[in-house]
């Protein structure tokens, strides 16, 4: 029983392995980047614009709005990170309709990697916003006793992020695999549709949770430390 695309190994040289997870991730990256590049080649600043540009604009502004609604004041600072998280996971889920495609998010290694990125991003943005001292002080809020609990919560939520996404994606593929052996015709299609929905929901949940964590890390800043990064992203 294969639980992860990690187990499909195309090439191995000692420590370095080229498994399906990495390969499909590259594939997704290619699709995303080339698609974006193609669409943004002929960007129009007029009132008239192409449908694809409209589509991308809707996605980008939608993500921006979501980030803002979570409570982050400067959504463009976080748009690169959170938007890419969402787009990557959503694209991985969407591509499950392609036969033979193994979603990289179905690998615990990938989800752990993403969760680790979030784990690093939260203090990164926290420190960026309120400085190192201000960020570290948030660990001893409201009292010093809360420090270990804060650290545990930080680690556990990262783990939860990774496992939640992995479980959902893996289970989707798993259920389809199992159903294929039992009712090979119609039911797997229904489950695939359900898997698509689940994948979208998971992408949304993952990125929204990351946004919430970052917002929680940046919210406790003091008024005197308004050192915002104004880089448009």
């Amino acid at each position: 029983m294969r639980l992860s695309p990690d187990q499909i190994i195309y090439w191995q040289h000692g420590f370095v392995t080229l498994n399906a997870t990495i390969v499909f991730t590259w594939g997704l990256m290619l699709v995303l980047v080339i698609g974006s590049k193609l669409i943004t080649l002929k960007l129009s600043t007029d009132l008239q614009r192409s449908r694809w540009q409209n589509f991308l604009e809707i996605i980008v502004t939608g993500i921006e709005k979501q980030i803002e609604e979570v409570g982050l004041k400067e959504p463009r600072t976080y748009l690169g990170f959170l938007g890419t998280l969402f787009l990557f996971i959503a694209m991985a889920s969407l591509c499950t309709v392609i036969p033979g495609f193994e979603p990289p998010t179905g690998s615990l290694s990938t989800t752990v990697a993403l969760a680790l990125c979030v784990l690093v991003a939260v203090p990164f943005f926290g420190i960026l916003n309120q400085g190192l001292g201000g960020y570290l002080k948030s660990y001893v809020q409201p009292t010093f006793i809360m420090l270990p609990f804060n650290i545990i919560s930080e680690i556990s939520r990262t783990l939860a992020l990774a496992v939640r996404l992995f479980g959902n994606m893996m289970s989707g593929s798993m259920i389809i695999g199992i159903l294929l052996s039992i009712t090979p015709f119609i039911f797997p299609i229904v489950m695939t549709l359900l898997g698509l929905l689940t994948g979208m929901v998971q992408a949304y949940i993952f990125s929204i949770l990351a946004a919430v964590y970052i917002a929680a890390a940046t919210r406790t800043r003091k008024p005197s430390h308004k050192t915002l990064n104004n880089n448009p992203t």
Partner: protein
Amino acid sequence: MLIDWFTVGAQVLNFLILVWLMKRFLYQPILHAIDEREKRIAAELGDADTKRAQAENERNEFQKKNAAFEKQRAELLNQATLDAKIEGQRLLDEARKAADSLSAKRQESLRNEGHHLNQTLRRRTQQEVFAIARQTLSDLANTSLEDRLCEVFIRRLSEMDAKTKPVLAEAFKTAIEPALVRSAFELSADQRSLIQNALNETFSADPAAQLRTGIQIRFETAPELISGIELATVTGQKLAWSIADYLLSLEKSLDELLKDQDKPLAKVMPELEVNSP
């Protein structure tokens, strides 16, 4: 083991690369395009606002000007109408006045002409009438008429009213010169004595005249009397009866009548007595 740590590291790297790539190729261009468009729209809206405000201003100004122009035009029109009316009224009045004065003048001249004609006619008629009367009476005058005249004069002497009589008697009394008796024809001796007697009789009734033997008189011929006898004292008292007197009196009264007709509003002159007391 489900977690392959090499894969984890590779995926972290992949994800970071993807983040950078997506920033580079998706978010930045898209956001830039959106910003540009928003800026452009804002600029266009601002421009439109400016233009609209400008248009509004211009429209207001135009409306104001239009209203002022309309008002001015109406005022001018009113003024012109009023002026024309006044001028027309004035011209009409002038014309009417001129016509009135012309017509008055014409009437006046017509009246004057008529009046003159009338006057002339009347005068001529009067003169003719009197001339005829005088001529007739002088033609008719002869001795028997003289006798009749004498009789009438004597009767009048005797019928003299009570007022005149004492005045005449007083005149005879105080007279130094004899009283004058004028007649159109030479009086005969009989007639003269008749008149003398009559005078004596008339005034002898008066106690003042009784003292005298008779009244001194002298006789004179005066053809202008036409027919008649006149007794004049030195002091100016006069007793007369002649056709010329009648004619004169008639002429006078006719003249007055004509004058009254010419001037209906003038007061009627009091009739003069022919004989002074």
